[in-house]
């Protein structure tokens, strides 16, 4: 489904060149759910950016469904790849209404001069919003800017569902929410991933999440994959094991310890 071959990314920082990714190889099959952990600057977000096409790799090859997409612009890759970031403001258009945002996501190709929101579509939207259980079904005509962070992120997840991507990239997408909303959005995402069997990569700082979700776990450091646990191996891991592995790399920082408690 998704393959990265020797992907490197170098950034220029003044006189220096910083290697954000140093030769990453990764192969994901359809339906794989990969969780990625690593300290700040490990290259997790760069990895997602390269997959989504918002930045191009310095060297290496990215392919989706055996098609080379290394230089394909982000908007063309969007037909297969959905992405939800940490920022609840990023995934929706604030001045437009909930209904308009949903309409934008529900039709992704061959847009025409037909009315975007028909009565039938509205009824579907009400159904979708009812299933969220956030009382948004009465607010279809409210601009999204009036929604709370949790509501906006739930809407973003719903919009990703509508688009039915084959690959879903989650970049700490619950990190900016309060615990209750984070749990809700997390559950929503899980349902969605299971129902559609979408290939998923989730970057997280929460080691419990990283262990509880998915069938594969990557640990990254300084732009490289340092551990790669599959199915069974991953199942037997504990948070303590992870912290132990981190400390063996001398990359334990306060934040990680806090996360691990």
């Amino acid at each position, binding site marked *: 489904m998704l393959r990265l071959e020797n992907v490197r990314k170098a950034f220029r920082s003044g006189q220096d060149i910083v290697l954000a990714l140093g030769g990453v190889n990764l192969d994901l099959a359809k339906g794989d759910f990969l969780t990625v952990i690593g300290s700040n600057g490990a290259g997790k977000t760069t990895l997602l950016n390269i997959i989504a096409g918002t930045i191009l790799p310095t060297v290496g090859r990215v392919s989706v469904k055996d098609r080379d997409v290394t230089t394909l*612009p982000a908007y063309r890759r969007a037909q297969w790849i959905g*992405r939800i970031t940490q920022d609840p403001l990023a995934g929706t258009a*604030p001045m*437009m209404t909930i209904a308009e945002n949903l309409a934008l996501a529900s039709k992704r190709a061959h847009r025409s001069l037909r009315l975007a929101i028909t009565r039938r579509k509205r009824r579907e939207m009400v159904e979708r919003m009812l299933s969220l259980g956030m009382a948004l079904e009465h607010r279809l005509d409210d601009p999204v800017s009036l929604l709370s962070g949790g509501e906006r992120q739930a809407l973003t997840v719903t919009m990703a569902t509508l688009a039915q991507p084959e690959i879903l990239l989650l970049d700490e997408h619950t990190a900016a929410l309060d615990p209750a909303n984070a749990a809700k959005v997390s559950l929503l995402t899980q349902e969605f991933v299971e129902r559609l069997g979408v290939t998923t990569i989730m970057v997280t700082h929460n080691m419990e999440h990283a262990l509880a979700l998915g069938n594969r776990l990557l640990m990254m450091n300084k732009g490289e994959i340092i551990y790669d646990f599959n199915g069974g191996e991953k199942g037997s891991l504990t948070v303590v094991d992870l912290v132990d592995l981190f400390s063996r790399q001398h990359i334990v920082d306060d934040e990680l310890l806090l996360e691990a408690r």
Partner: protein
Amino acid sequence: MALILIHAAEQGLLYGIAALGVFITYRILNFPDLTVDGSFVTGAAIASSLLVTHGFDPFLVLVIAFAAGAVAGVITGLLNTRLGITDLLAGVLSMIMLYSINLRIMGRPNISLLRTDTVVRIVAREFHSLGNMSVLLFVTIVTLAVMFILVFFFKTEIGLVLRATGDNEHMVIAQGVNTKRMKVAGLALSNGLVALSGALVAQYSGFADVGMGIGTIVTGLAAVIIGGSLIRSRKVVWMTTSVLIGSLIYRTAVMFALRYGYVIGFQASDLKLVTSLIVIVALVVPAFRERMARRVKTC
């Protein structure tokens, strides 16, 4: 007195079409586009030279003017999205290029339409039973038609994408849209409307002049801002209505200033200065009000 109001309304609506064009770039696309100062004249130039030297149909030249303005918008769009020139500079470059092109189109700095049949004259002739209301009625119908087509367009799938492009471009890219192409399309639509307005104004006032477009961006902004401060809605139908109302208020104010301004020492040539001052105040007041409100809250 009544006649002044009728003329103000006619002009308010005709320039209102240009203001709708400015509205598309400034409010919807979030792209401050200065091309309009040139494309307004392009519309007027194409219309009048086709009427005078080639005897074209006065209604047909409106369509041609729209198309010419759209091409100007496309050029600004390509300068910005393909060549990476910043939005303001891309607009300025187009505007300056258009100055020469407009002179080429007209062949001289101004063209009189006094001896030519224009849409305004045709309407006044065909509907002379309506007296001096006939032109106003025609202008109202044309402007409202443009507005409602625009409102409908912004409710279509493509229209929705165009609005979202100005609102959250990254999100629109993630929805699989080539936002560069959408910006070019939006600029084309905007400048098409501005050129249409120019063609109508030329036929209405009976001449085209290469300098008639100076300040189109400012008067357009004045209409958008005045209207927006009166009607605060995010619905497209109300936003576009507010632009037309803003344009009507602005033109009425200008009419009275030109007629009675001498009382307080105004000259007609002070108009652009006063307009710009109005726009500055209108731009600054909301930000100032917000700051005051925040200060009250923190106290």
